[in-house]
């Protein structure tokens, strides 16, 4: 769907909804929200809901970013430490590489 067709209040609703849903460990949704509503929030001529939309977009963006960083950190740690963790590492692994430790 394209936002431009939505009346502003609906936009706000949608944005808020996305933000709320994103709270269920769904940073991807947040990211989408942030990108999707970015124009609405920052590029469009101001309208009264814009303030809140801005807020949600900001929050989603930051949240997504935080999650992203956290995930990246975890992945890095895992990839580096898997071998040294031994059995724990294997039991954590969904794919264990063949032919190497």
């Amino acid at each position, binding site marked *: 769907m394209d936002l431009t067709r939505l009346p502003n209040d609906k936009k706000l609703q949608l944005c808020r909804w996305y933000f709320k849903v994103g709270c269920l460990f769904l940073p991807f949704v947040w990211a989408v929200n942030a990108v999707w509503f970015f124009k609405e929030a920052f590029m469009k001529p101001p309208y009264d809901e814009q303030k809140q939309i801005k807020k949600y977009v900001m929050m989603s963006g930051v949240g997504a970013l935080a999650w992203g960083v956290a995930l990246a950190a975890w992945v890095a740690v895992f990839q580096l430490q898997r071998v040294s963790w031994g*059995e724990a590492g*294997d*039991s954590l692994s*969904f*794919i*264990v590489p*063949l*032919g*190497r*430790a």
Partner: protein
Amino acid sequence: MKMYQLGVLSFFCFIALSQSERLHEQIYSSIEGGAACFRRLNGTHQAGCSSTDKGAVGPVLMIKEINDALWLTQNGTAGPYIAVVSTALFHDIIEEFMNNPTNVAGILVYEDAYQITSAFTHDSKCPNEYSSGPGSTCSSSEPEGFVWNEKGTDLMRRDIPFPMFFLPESRIEEIKKIEECYQRYNLDRNAHSGKPLCSVQLHSFMFAAVDTVVCLRRSASSAILTPTKVCDPLGDQNVYYPLFSRAKENKEAKRPVILVTARIDTASLFDGISPGAASSVVGMVTLLNTAEVLRSMIPMSKTYGTNVIFTLLNGEAFDYIGSQKVAYDISRGAWPPIMPLSPTDIPLHIELGQIGGALLSHRDEESWPLYAFTPNLSNNVDKVSEFVNALSSDLKQYNMSLVMTATDNIPPSSLHSFRRILKNVTESGSLTEILIADHNAQFTNMFYNSALDDYTKIGFDYHNITVGSDGIFLQNDEILAKGIMNATEIQVKISRLATSLARTLYKKITDEEYTGANQASAHLVDEMMYCFLRSQMCRLLLAADYGNSGGTENLPQKPTPLYVGVSAYSLTAPVFAGHMLALFTGMHFPELNRTTCDRIDKSEFSYLYLKGWNNTGVCIQTTMNFSQAISPAFVERDYDYASGFYSTWTESVWQTMWARVFVAASGNGALAAFIAGAVATAIAAFLTFWIQRNAQRIFINAPTGSLVSTDATTGILRTVNC
């Protein structure tokens, strides 16, 4: 047009021979018949080779002399290289490669008939060192220590950082192919960089890694929906044959049992090539013949105070898997399944160890120096010497010698398992152990557990004497009299050893000298050796094959590999051996047909329906049976794999093994292409852009678009609709 035709005609001449072959076949040529070194794991280490999952690629370097190897490791420029080396040179250069492998992508070992290979053994200097019983002084670690297998490179126990392939003599033309390519491209080794090089790709990617613990764990845990298996425990079947059926005996009054053992299996670094002539086959054949002769000597009607169990142990090359299992089961009173033995039921254990190493060196005389090793125990030395003397005196008539050495430093053999697991009986001396081998201080076999340990290493040549449909073999006297064989040939020697051993055992059982004329037949030995060393397509195996199995075509022309394999799949070697035992020692009922034969169910016997000598099928009643040969480590609950008490060998799973030769590009082509491409693209882009931009001004007298006339639309409709 005309001139073109001429042109074509002129071209026809050399186009004529152009095939429409896929480019791929022009680039690559696969190296057929190579055997790859693969990965095994034990409780603490991984051993053997693995390539990367894409395969190891490198320019070829033919190793003609040791200096080539040094050049490769020290100042090879286009490396890492694939070293192509003959077995003759292998032992001299392998350490160099193992010590600095950075410039080695892989090794292709080939057997070359024109170069004498003095030694080729990749087992440890002290085979199964860490499973040896108390008192063995062999140590591969300390430099000046005493060792059995002096030439051993221990590669089978070490982690090799690069893949290795072995090409047998029969595949020498593949080497010629590589050599040719090498001559064309790689000869000037100092100008390698920046030129197309003849290269080889070795692919043998192993799934398992680290050690048995890890790989078993990973085999157990698998991602949902798609299980993955990365390694299996080694193991197969032991074969045992009680001379008399033991089922009828009652628990308290069990007859003492003399255990006569030999090993079935051998090993080699490379997959599927493990002939093991001197390492195991001679011993096994001797045992089979002994059983056959003894059976023919002893009247089955009478019952005697002593029984004999002939046992063929499997997996001995890998820390005595088979004997460890047997000893372990005996200690738990679980072997054999019918009327299990207790350790005290076995007064005597005779192992036919590695005999055959000395055969080649004694091929011209009748003599065959044999040695009897026995643990150095005061209390049963007379028991041993009694037996040994009996045997040696019997051997004397054949000019064969048997020298007894009482020492705790016993050569690698199943004795070690018994001495570790059944400590109390072996040390108390209630179980007397004798190992018969044909080497004394060190192995006379320079190819112990290797791919080259084939029939030529024991000087065996096949006489191919026909066997009657009655399964009667020529007696030695006849053979020698007719001069079909002469007394120096190994068949005769082996048969004689078997005869002597049988006689000695006869005496042990019946307490009287054997007076009959039954002898082991060199003819039978000849056939047996042929079956195990040359081709499965042999008379005995045809006769010993399952009666219901298809014709002869299902038996390949090559010998059956004697590598123990993984416990998950049973290999043919023990089955063949067992069937032979059954065929020669069992009771034949030709009249019974298959269904009835299968239906018979007597607890003390098992019934096999084999092809028989005239391929009509025969039902055989036998006491021969199979028992599992898998290390107790995998049987026992939560066994600590690192403890190293039992064998913990597992074999990695792999998908494919292949090797191919091709020419690798130098990259000049790529560079040229890139430059040309960039230029062309840039020019094209610019011209297109420019011409399109001012098309109006460039195409001044362009052929103007004809129509758009007034009836355009109808025109459209017409055009579109038609």
